[in-house]
């Protein structure tokens, strides 16, 4: 093996940012030498060699396999669960159900009431009824099939559009209205009166399911009274607190580990019942239990992006000035108060300057799986309506769609109290530079319905966005530990969902300490050994964690410099940290290598603790973006092909250009799914059951659906006001405008405004045929 310990530092001559005096905060970076570069991931080897251990891979001695019996009806009452045959089956070691004393637990209390772990009142298909653990997953499944349940099948409502109709079966005793919200500013009536063109349209986005590649699940193991859980999660601390609460354990006795996880997209922000169930099965059998959901279960019970039924009425002057927006949305979080309408209206409220806005949100209960946060909750749905409407308005007043948007740029956040300014907004630049990179005006002239010949039609479309969050916030604590040879251990609680969190954090440490990212060992996502972090999600992980990491690394430098000052008998203010060495600014002969510091050798390690400081007061940190695409429609078959995308995003500083671009491509891919392929289908009329609960019938975009020609165009500069790294969130905004941009391009190509997802051949062929009939 090569001697890696010699190789910790960058070659001499690469400057390290100035070190603030002890007790002082670091300034914004002027120039960076590591941050922003294209760096393959620090854990790439583990991920491509198979040595990364995902929760699904955890295999403990004597481990059993668990399985859950779920209610097959959308609405039913469990009268009796007979597990007698199941418990006698070969290999079966534990069986639990609602009447098992240890499993008779409250799962949660919310606005709809109390929900038990195995709730006798099942309000959606897929609610947990019983569970088993057996020697093999096959035997566990056999036992599940042998459990006999007596259900009283109840009438259901699966279609949210019917939930409030008279005579619809109530999901909860208080009725099917979960929540209604209104927002108002100005006076829309006056706004519409002032308009020269008023348009109104209805839109619908279908329910989209997260289906990360790694199913939800965990391995649970007891050592005495302490529980350890290896969980596929976005937030180990969130899982820990829920499990401890439900099982009534002290937090310190619940350790949750999530070093690697196979994707979440919001659906693994919170704990699932399966974790508590695995823990109970493990306790009953006195053996570790692995419980991974089947793919079908992940379709039924662990979240979705709610289906949204929207109307938008918009008024505009001939010069393109928006005068009024009136928006309604009816949506469902399924059987729980899970935020069916959350944030769906945010873009209508805040993306463009508009003095008169009214939004009305109606969130209803249905007998369907509960929603969970899904990458940019509410925003892609709102963008689907707003950004298609902007195009329709542009056409009505004879303006270019990009120009119409530029005409209505917002200088501050209109929807927030006190109209705070943004720390930075690159929206204008996203539109202008994105359009230039795409060749927007030329492409628009050369494609479109008017340029069409034959049945293959091309068109271009675009859409813009902001993301309501993405600034990050406290709390976060990070520890950087420098060993006596200069190598570093970085300890943080945050999960890396695949966004490259670990790599970005290693780059921050490398930037400050002048050591190679490879010399940084990362411990993360373990409530037993790493510091507190909120779950990774909402595009807040980098802007939350990176500043704390930077503060921790800076503190290490400060401590090393104090050691050097003592060793060199000089004042700290005279010294400069250069990575390998600490050198006097006045007298270059006064220098000492970090690993020669006696104090460091004696102490063994230097520890820096970094906290996430507060966000700037009275300002908002939001990322912005605009996407442009070109499509080709076969008007005979209804096939839609995406030819290219340009994505211009202002997310402040680019931390790692390689993983940044990857996020952009991934967001677009997911947006293409919403636009073209994905829709949960419930048999709302007859059985209420989901009929496409697998990847065969519910299609994700494949390698054949995504263009190879995607350009990621980061829009600067770094946001010096947002935090000490200048980064804003990226993961959510990149999926917000995609579907609307595709719909706008299809409209440009065909003249058809498709207001309902998914734009698939079925729908397109039908719409094209209708148009032919109408002549």
């Amino acid at each position, binding site marked *: 093996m090569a001697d890696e310990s010699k190789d910790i530092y960058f070659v001499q001559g690469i400057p390290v940012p100035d070190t603030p005096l002890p007790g002082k905060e670091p300034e914004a970076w002027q120039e960076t030498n590591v941050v922003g570069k294209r760096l*393959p991931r620090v854990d*790439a080897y583990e*991920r*491509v*060699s*198979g040595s*990364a*251990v*995902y929760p*699904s*891979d955890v*295999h403990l001695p004597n481990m059993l396999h668990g399985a859950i019996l779920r209610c097959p009806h959308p609405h039913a009452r469990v009268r009796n669960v007979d597990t007698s045959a199941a418990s006698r*089956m*070969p*290999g079966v070691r534990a069986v639990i159900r609602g009447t098992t004393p240890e499993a008779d637990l409250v799962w949660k209390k919310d606005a709809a009431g109390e929900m038990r772990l195995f709730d006798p009142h099942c309000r959606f298909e897929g609610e947990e009824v019983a569970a088993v653990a057996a*020697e*093999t*997953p*096959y*035997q566990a499944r*056999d036992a599940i*099939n*042998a459990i006999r349940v007596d259900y009283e099948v109840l009438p259901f409502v699966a279609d949210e559009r019917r939930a409030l109709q008279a005579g619809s079966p109530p999901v909860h005793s208080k009725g099917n209205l979960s929540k209604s919200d209104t927002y108002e500013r100005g006076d829309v009536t006056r706004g519409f009166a002032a308009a020269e063109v008023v348009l109104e349209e209805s839109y619908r986005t279908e329910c989209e399911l*997260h*289906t*990360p*590649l*790694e*199913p939800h699940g965990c391995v649970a193991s007891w050592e005495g009274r302490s529980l350890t859980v290896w969980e596929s999660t976005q937030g180990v601390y969130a899982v820990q607190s829920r499990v401890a609460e439900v099982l009534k354990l002290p937090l310190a006795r619940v350790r949750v580990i999530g070093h*690697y*996880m*196979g*994707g979440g*997209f919001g659906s693994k922000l919170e704990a699932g019942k399966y974790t508590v169930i695995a823990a109970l099965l493990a306790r009953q059998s006195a053996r570790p239990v692995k419980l*991974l959901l089947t*793919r079908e279960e992940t379709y039924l019970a662990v979240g979705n992006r709610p289906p949204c039924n929207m109307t938008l009425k918009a008024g505009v002057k001939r010069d393109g000035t928006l005068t009024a927006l009136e928006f309604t949305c009816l949506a469902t979080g399924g059987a729980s108060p899970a935020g069916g309408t959350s944030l769906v209206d945010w873009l209508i409220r805040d993306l463009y300057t508009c003095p008169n806005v009214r939004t009305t949100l109606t969130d209803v209960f249905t007998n369907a799986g509960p929603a969970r946060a899904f990458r940019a909750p509410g925003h892609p749905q709102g963008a689907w309506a707003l950004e298609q409407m902007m195009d329709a308005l542009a056409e009505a007043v004879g303006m270019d769609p990009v120009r119409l948007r530029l005409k209505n740029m917002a200088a501050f956040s209109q929807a927030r109290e006190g109209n705070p300014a943004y720390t930075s907004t690159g929206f204008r630049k996203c539109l202008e530079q994105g359009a230039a990179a795409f060749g927007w005006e030329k492409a628009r002239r050369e494609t479109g319905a008017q340029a069409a010949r034959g049945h293959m039609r091309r068109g271009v479309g675009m859409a813009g966005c902001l993301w309501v969050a993405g600034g990050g916030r406290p709390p976060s604590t990070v520890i950087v530990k420098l060993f006596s040879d200069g190598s570093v251990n970085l300890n943080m609680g945050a999960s890396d*969902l*695949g966004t*490259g969190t670990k790599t970005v954090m290693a780059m921050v440490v490398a930037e400050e300490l002048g050591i190679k990212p490879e010399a940084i060992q990362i411990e993360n996502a373990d409530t037993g050994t790493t510091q507190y972090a909120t779950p990774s999600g909402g595009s807040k992980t980098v802007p939350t964690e990176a500043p704390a990491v930077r503060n921790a690394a800076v503190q290490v430098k400060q401590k090393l410099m104090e050691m050097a000052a003592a060793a060199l008998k000089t004042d700290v203010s005279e010294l400069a940290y250069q990575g390998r060495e600490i050198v006097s600014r006045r007298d270059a002969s006064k220098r000492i290598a970090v690993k020669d510091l006696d104090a460091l050798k004696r102490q063994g390690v230097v520890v820096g603790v970094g906290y996430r400081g507060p966000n700037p007061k009275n300002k908002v940190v939001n990322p912005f973006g605009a996407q442009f695409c070109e499509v080709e429609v076969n008007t005979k078959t209804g096939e839609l092909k995406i030819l290219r995308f340009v994505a211009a995003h202002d997310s402040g500083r680019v931390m790692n250009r*390689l*993983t940044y671009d*990857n*996020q952009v*491509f*991934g*967001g*677009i*891919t*997911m947006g293409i799914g919403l636009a073209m392929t994905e829709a949960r289908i419930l048999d709302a009329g007859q059985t209420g059951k989901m009929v496409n609960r*697998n*990847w*065969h019938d519910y299609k*994700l*975009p*494949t*390698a*054949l659906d*995504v263009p*190879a020609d*995607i350009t990621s165009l980061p829009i600067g500069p770094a946001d010096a006001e947002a935090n000490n790294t200048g980064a804003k969130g990226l993961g959510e905004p990149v999926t917000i405008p995609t579907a609307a941009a595709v719909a706008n391009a299809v409209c440009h190509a065909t003249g058809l405004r498709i207001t309902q997802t998914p734009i698939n051949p079925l729908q397109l062929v039908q719409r094209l045929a209708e148009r032919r009939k109408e002549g």
Partner: protein
Amino acid sequence: MPRKNPTTGPDGLTRRGFLTSMGTGAIGVAASADLFAAGKEAVDPQVMPAGRTSKVVLRINGETHVVLAEPRWTLLYVLREVIGLTGAKPGCERGECGACTVLIDGVARYACLTLAAEAQGSEVTTLEGLMDGETLGPVQTAFAEADAFQCGYCTPGQIMAVEGLLRTNPNPSAEEIRRGASGNLCRCGAYKHIFEAAHRAAELKRGK
């Protein structure tokens, strides 16, 4: 999606005949493993209780493994939970995602749709088998350098699909790469980087 499941078993057993032998009862009904070894059509399936295992000899990454397996156990299950090779991942266990892709006699196949007994007599290569000791193979190297993944969970399958593609087509066109990768889902949407990695892997394999 390309078909990744054999229509013909290792010894010429047809998939149809095989399924007939599997679908004859309730719990744990299956043909004995010997049936496959003999390569006969299933005529008289034996009924075995769940939990009854029989010997299955597998060649994996050049090594022989003798395991006791129930006839219904998939190759994926045996690789991961019996032998401990966790490179191949379960994503759906129903032939939809490709996370479980391995090479069977050099061809990319879904290990979740292949029974362990069915893989007898074949050379199985898993992600681990692409390594040279601690050193990554060319496709793995290309994936790491091109950042051809995000969460990394689909990645072992993607790598095996590209490996399988390059073994039959060392110099694929962009379109051939897309088709070669189309049997493997990536929910993170790293496809563009996967295409780049496949291209680079082809170069690395050619010694460039």
